[in-house]
């Protein structure tokens, strides 16, 4: 495997990074951001949508801040699993990401902006040529999607990050910065369908940091992850739940690894709460309605029907677990 050639840029400040991005945009040159590289570089080695320029965030000072209320984009996952003061729910999710080896390089920013995955897409070049490419990496052919055939408008690649749903149920906000300045929005609004769009980041923009309000610090929660090998697999389904202890009306649920974006499920929770909370029966009803709300497709290692069934189990376990605490 040979990495395709690219020019690596190492800006020292956020401003320099934005300026560089602006400049490349102006010239019409394509580029990718890279943080830890654990997602991007394997894809590059497979020649999946490589760009001629890569801007690294690694040399920018002050992007690896770590506290209860603020996590910089370059904070390494390994630090999220060991540093004190981080929200325990984030710690729980971070320690379930990939393997300890990957966590040493991987960053929170990269994890939130993880490229969506699909077994028609995450393959070597020869392999993808043998299926005549796919919509997400069509190599200029306008190829169809291989999961939902006969169309090339929607990409259903799956978002398989672990931390996003936990930050969602903690009401985290993300700070996005680019040549046009800074904007702050709830993480729940950060993700955007489809599997190619992935999120609201505009060209030249990158995720600078995540902030958690004082309110969120009061929340407790859990993250349930489904995978074949606990040692390092991507989630096949993931459910995060949190509440402010004792107050069931504050319950929040988010799911991941089931669709092209992670999702918060306020409507489903609200519907159950509307009927009045009745302990385990409500938990079961909620689990069922979350199961109904998600639509996994056949592009990860476990079949979608099974993953859908498991959402019910994971939701049940997550809610039971926080209620028990």
């Amino acid at each position: 495997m040979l990495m395709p050639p690219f020019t690596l840029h190492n800006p020292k400040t956020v401003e320099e990074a934005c300026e560089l991005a602006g400049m490349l945009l102006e010239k019409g040159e394509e580029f990718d951001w890279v943080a830890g590289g654990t997602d991007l570089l394997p894809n590059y080695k497979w020649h999946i949508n490589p760009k001629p320029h890569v801007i690294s965030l690694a040399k920018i000072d002050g992007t690896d801040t770590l506290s209860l209320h603020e996590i910089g984009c370059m904070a390494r996952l390994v630090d999220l699993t060991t540093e004190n003061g981080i929200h325990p729910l984030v710690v729980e999710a971070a320690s379930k990401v990939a393997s300890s080896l990957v966590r040493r390089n991987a960053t929170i920013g990269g994890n939130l902006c993880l490229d969506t995955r699909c077994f028609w897409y995450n393959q070597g070049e020869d392999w993808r040529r043998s299926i005549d490419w796919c919509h997400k990496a069509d190599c200029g052919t306008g190829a169809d999607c291989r999961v939902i055939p006969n169309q090339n408008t929607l990409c259903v690649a799956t978002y398989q990050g672990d931390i996003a749903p936990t930050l969602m149920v903690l009401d985290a906000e993300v700070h996005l910065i680019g040549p046009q300045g800074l904007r702050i929005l709830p993480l729940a609004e950060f993700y955007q369908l489809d599997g190619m769009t992935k999120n609201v980041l505009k060209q030249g923009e990158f995720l600078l940091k995540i902030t958690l309000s004082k309110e969120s610090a009061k929340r407790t929660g859990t993250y349930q992850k489904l995978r074949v090998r606990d040692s390092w697999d991507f989630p096949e389904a993931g459910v995060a739940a949190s509440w402010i202890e004792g107050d069931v009306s504050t319950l929040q649920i988010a799911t991941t690894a089931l669709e092209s974006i992670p999702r918060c499920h306020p409507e489903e929770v609200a519907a159950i709460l509307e009927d009045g909370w009745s302990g385990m029966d409500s938990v079961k009803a909620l689990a069922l309605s979350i199961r109904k709300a998600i639509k996994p497709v056949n592009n990860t290692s476990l079949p979608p029907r099974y993953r859908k069934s498991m959402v019910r189990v994971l939701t049940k376990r997550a809610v039971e677990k926080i209620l028990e605490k």
Partner: protein
Amino acid sequence: MSGGYRQQPGGAGGTTRKDGKRVAGKQAFPPPGSGGSKPNMSPRDLDYIPESVGGKEPQPAGSHIHDRARTGTSVGKEMPLVDSNAKVTGQAWYGDDVRLPNEVIGKILRSPHHYARIKSIDTSRVEALPGVLAVATGADSPHRFGVLPVTKDEHAMAVEKVRHVGDLVACVAAIDESTALEALNLFDVEWEILEPVFDPKKGLEDSDEPIHWRGKYHLARTNVQKRVFQEFGDRSLVEKPHAQSHGKWKMAGVHHGFTEPHAVVAHWDPNGRLQLYTPQQVPHYTHRALSTVLDVPMHQINVIRTFVGGGFGGKSDPFPHEMCAAILSRKSGRPVRITFDREEVYWINRGRHPSHIEVKMTADEDARISGFDIDALIDGGGFASFGHVTSYYNGVLATAPYELGSFHYTGARVWTNKPASGAMRGHGAVNTRCAVEVGLDEMAETMQVDPIDLRLANLLPPHSRTISGFRITSNGMREALEKVREGSNWDEKFRQLPLGKGIGIGCGFFISGSGLPIHWDPNRFPHATVHMQVDMDGGVTVHTGAADIGQGSTTAVAQVVSEVLALPIEMIHVRSHESDTSPVDLGSYSSRVTFMNANAAIRAALEIRERLLNAAWDILGYHPDNLVMNDRRIYYKHDPAIGVSYLKALHKAQEDKGALISSGAYRSPPMGGVHKGAAAGLAPAYSFSSYVAEVDVDVETGMIKCTNVWAAHDCGKALNPLAVKGQIIGSCHMGLGQVLSEKMVYGRTGHLQNPNLLEYKIPSVYEMPHVEPIIIESCDPEGPFGAKEAGEGPLLPILPAVVNAVYDAIGIRLRDLPLTPDVVFKGIEKALKQSEYDDPTDLPSPRLTHSALQPKLVARANEHKIRDKARQRTEDTSPYVNGVLFGFDPNLPLEDQVEGWRTATEPDPEQLAELGLAGRAWLKKEQRQMGGEQ
């Protein structure tokens, strides 16, 4: 000076003058001379010298022919492998570590189509690319090759058709990798797409364009590569069964998952000889195939086996990329290196066959196993590879360790447009073994007896013959079962654990070396040869062609030589890398290496030993019968002071001829039946194993976690217990992968969806249970110091042990491997639907109340235990053949005693209608019988 007898040759006096100068003609051989790091002889290690020759090593299984060669030096001791330093310091040179001056990079153009005819290949644009040094296509290599002489169906590159995605089409050598990659895009190939076949069931049907054509032997127009029918015994016994089990299995294909991808470097040296560096398990086959493909005599080729970063059967075929490198190097005049990406490793495959297996079995009212009826349809992919053998192994390796009333097997291997299946650890035996052992569990359940007792009451004894005619010598099956039962606390747990927790048993039986060397008559050329050379310095150089693929064959050879000559292991130097210096050896497959190679090495060492003892006789005046060899010294057995150092004896022995040279060989004894296919599965010895596995099953998610394994394996004699334990634990890991998570996934378009180590899910150390390796030593009469294989057999029992444990945990029989959580969940959902429960946590756990058969089985097992002990120690030398349990006389041919006792290799016409899935291949006729090609 104290602590024993010094080993340095010569004395201090007499060789130097007082002024320190040398006395003319009196100089002893230069130091250090004695070898080893300790100046003094260590005492004899009686704990490692067998009782039969006066030591203290217990021999419950009896004495052995090699006992007299034991010196207590190395055999039976835990030793790190001799190449471990190179490996742990990163200095071992694997395929891709070879760097030759001026080397260039080769890349392979692979088929993007499942099945297509190549109408034309235009290479002009490739050749025009600056930096490209050579281009080759199928036209450069018209000669066929293949690992088995009967099924040579491969070319270096596709000659007429490509047969799977990833099949080799052409290759190119360029000054660097990026140029070579760029060049691949410049080939202009014109294709004619053909209709592919993916489902092996479809492979049984006639096709417009069979994947290969075998001329007059081709079976109609199907894609059947090989069909097998075997029937032995009295089939009337199965007609009115007391208990039975019937299971249809679907097993996914699995890959070896070795760490090192294939890599090769080819170089035509200035004399025009090919030097080929490759991580091969069987360098000799590559050697032969290169000679054929390149049209060069074998003596003009030197195959250099690099360190092998794992093989497990996946590096035992001669490979097309090895031919490509040689062709490109010949064309370019430069050394050419080809290293695979992981997906290329999966495309060349040779992993375990995806299989459809159906097993029916019956037992009579005494819980004797009256019949096994096995049908195996195996998916061979695009090429034959070892498939001819696999087709037999899927049946015949199930004929032991149990005594059977009858045995019926139909097997078929079909070509499909997928990467070729081949040999993988436990070759051909693993899938059927799993199905059979689970069947036994199910029969035990119907008869309400303990499955361990059912097995113990139906075992073939040591020194017996199986229903198919295999000669069993040593047999530690009974002890293995007893040990795991005790170790796991089975009697307290089986059918008594709560829902979600289970315990299960599984056994295994495997060949220790194949009785038939594929390429020659075993009566005319040995299986293995070892050359030995001892020069002035006392170091022993051993030349062998045995390919160490990490299993420790080099260490085993060094150990047995060290043992016979009573020399520290660091004085033994094994040279096994080059075909120029190695004697011909069949390499590492069918678990033959330690058995055959160490036997050959012992013979060569015994010859050296005799010469050393004769020399000591000359010096000391004591006959060799009265001399002891121990740690670099030979001495009179009643007085160690009367002795001579090893070096002195050696130099005496060398007086007239210089270095001592010897050669030893191993040939298997004549054995086996005469029916068609009788040679398949024949081995000079067989290993036996038994595992108990404990699992936790999450009934809501279907997730299985294997927590504990008690793993007993009969390896005859553990030459190196450390290595044996490593093999047991490693086998357990590999088998767990197959039963729980590993599978080659072919999607709806026929593409292999997971050709990478993220999605092909090999368990990590985190998923590993605690494994308690238990070594059983049955002391094989023909094995080196009693040893048998330990590299493959230990894989077999883990699969059924886990499947049976899952049943014990949740009461559901699953027959779709691997047992990924979705498969288990589906089983649970189905069970819930058929029950009165909604919640899986309410499911009942299976329980056992013994029937009246149970005490009968225990009594029979106890009787057999006494029988087996006497036979194992050869206190009872009466013949025993499969059938005695059913009341037959072993001294008369069974055919003469039982009406209808069959040994058939073709079905009777009236049987045709009732044959299983694979058996349907027998409905077809060969071309020559159809009046087609003659």
